[in-house]
């Protein structure tokens, strides 16, 4: 495997409803990441983006985003209809596949403010048997949370602790949206959205965007970049979707991806987990066997800011950022997609 590092990233603060158009959001993060990387815009060997059309209800939303990045002269470019974390995987693999390529930029954008996101996500389900009932994404997550409570290993207090902790940590993240000092009691007495999920255990609806630059060892050396976050393991796995055919209390795909990426929970300083719902962090911690010494979600995670199609790549940006700032030697970024943690990705990075 070739040595590839995350060397720069940029994001815009997550907001309930951004005044910026998609194009402006993308323009800001792409230009921001390029400037931080010190690489000329024309020198990128590969571009890849992630987004989802159904969020705005219009086909080809990524086409207008291409107007924002200065794609002239023509660029080598691709797009996944997924969270940007998978676009990063594609870009990383592209650099693995061709030793002549040295740097790539990945970006993603998503606006939760345009449409009814929980209902839109019901269109991800089985179109014959499930979508006609319109189970929204919060209800689907709530069925998973109930299974966890029924399993007896966790109580609702554990959900509350996760929520309170993430919002508290998010206070130091200038890009976070929903942060503050809440008490466990406050969280546990909040209104139900879909029982047993109360308001505090659910993510905010966010608009956001982020971009990330990766480069080969040759390019890192050429740039004299001081604190690259070397990608040491990168893997993603999927499970069957239907809630009735899998164990909702564990995450087999996270466990597998983590093992293949060499996550080794006890060796990590930081783990940024994409757990939009509080109970999902508990499932992910188990799947990745994270020990008590690991700092989980110092950014506040998806409970503090959850721009859809972006929040996964944000976890990798935040984990890489901890390495760039010298706060971590070894960090993990995780992303999830699909109902109730159906699909999961793990990226393990290390300092020099």
């Amino acid at each position, binding site marked *: 495997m070739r040595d590839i590092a995350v060397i720069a990233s940029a994001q815009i603060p997550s907001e309930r409803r951004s005044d910026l*158009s*998609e194009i402006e959001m993308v*323009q800001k993060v792409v230009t921001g990441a390029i400037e931080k990387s010190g690489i000329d815009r024309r020198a990128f060997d590969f571009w890849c983006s992630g987004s989802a059309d159904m969020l705005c209800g219009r086909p080809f939303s990524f086409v207008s985003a291409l*107007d*924002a990045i*200065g794609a*002239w002269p023509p660029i080598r470019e691709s797009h996944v209809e997924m969270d940007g974390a998978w676009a990063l995987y594609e870009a990383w693999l592209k650099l693995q596949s061709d030793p002549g390529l040295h740097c790539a930029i990945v970006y993603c954008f998503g606006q939760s*403010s345009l449409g009814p996101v929980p209902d839109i996500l019901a269109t991800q389900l089985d179109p*014959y048997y499930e979508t006609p009932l319109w189970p929204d994404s919060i209800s689907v997550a709530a069925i998973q949370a109930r299974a966890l409570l029924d399993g007896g290993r966790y109580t609702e207090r554990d959900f509350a602790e996760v929520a309170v902790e993430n919002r508290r940590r998010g206070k130091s993240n200038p890009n976070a949206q929903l942060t503050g000092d809440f008490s466990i009691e406050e969280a546990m007495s909040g209104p139900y959205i879909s029982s047993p999920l109360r308001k505090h255990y659910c993510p905010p609806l966010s608009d956001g965007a982020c971009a990330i630059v990766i480069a080969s060892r040759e390019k890192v050396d050429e740039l004299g970049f001081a604190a690259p976050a070397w990608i040491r393991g990168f893997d993603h796995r999927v499970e069957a979707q239907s809630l009735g055919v899998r164990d909702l209390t564990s995450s087999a795909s996270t466990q597998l991806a983590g093992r293949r990426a060499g996550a080794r929970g006890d060796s990590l300083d930081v783990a940024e987990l994409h757990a939009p719902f509080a109970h999902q962090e508990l499932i992910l911690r188990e799947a990745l066997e994270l020990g008590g010494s690991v700092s989980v979600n110092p950014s506040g995670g998806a409970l503090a800011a959850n721009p859809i199609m972006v929040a996964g790549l944000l976890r990798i940006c935040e984990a890489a950022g901890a390495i760039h700032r010298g706060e971590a030697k070894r960090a993990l970024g995780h992303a999830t997609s699909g109902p109730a943690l159906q699909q999961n990705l793990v990226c393990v990075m290390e300092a020099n």
Partner: protein
Amino acid sequence: MSEDAQGPITMIRTPVDLEYNISAGPDLTLFLRGLKEEKKLYGRRSPNGDVYIPPRGACPVTGQPMLEEVEVSDHGTVTTFCLINIPIEGQELKPPYVFAAIILDGASLPLFHMIAGIAADEARMGMRVKANWKPDDELVLSLESINYFEPSGEPDADYDSYKEHL
């Protein structure tokens, strides 16, 4: 619903009905307000001097933010066109109609709109046209404020003058 209530089910209808609230963003807002409130066409200048209409959030060529707003003429040249003979679901216009790329005077790339005021087979590349606006009290936040473009009476433009804008 089954198509045939008696026989085996082979096809079902599954409706989707999702309500969105779409934002125009600052640049399209500038453009659309110009149409409705001032009967004017506003674009923006890009960092390399081109004028984009409708204006957009970034320069497609450089990836940099756009600069100041620029008013563009409502007269222009048809660079190319086609004659639409096919009804489109959700489309209010009745075929046949001429759909054209029009480079407005002062703009650096064409805008797409309909041409009327001529027989459909008289449409041609290089034809000079001007906007036919709706009455002031019927203007809307949309390019529909312009009913269509129609011949302006000016002589046709030289092919060389617009061949870079096809």
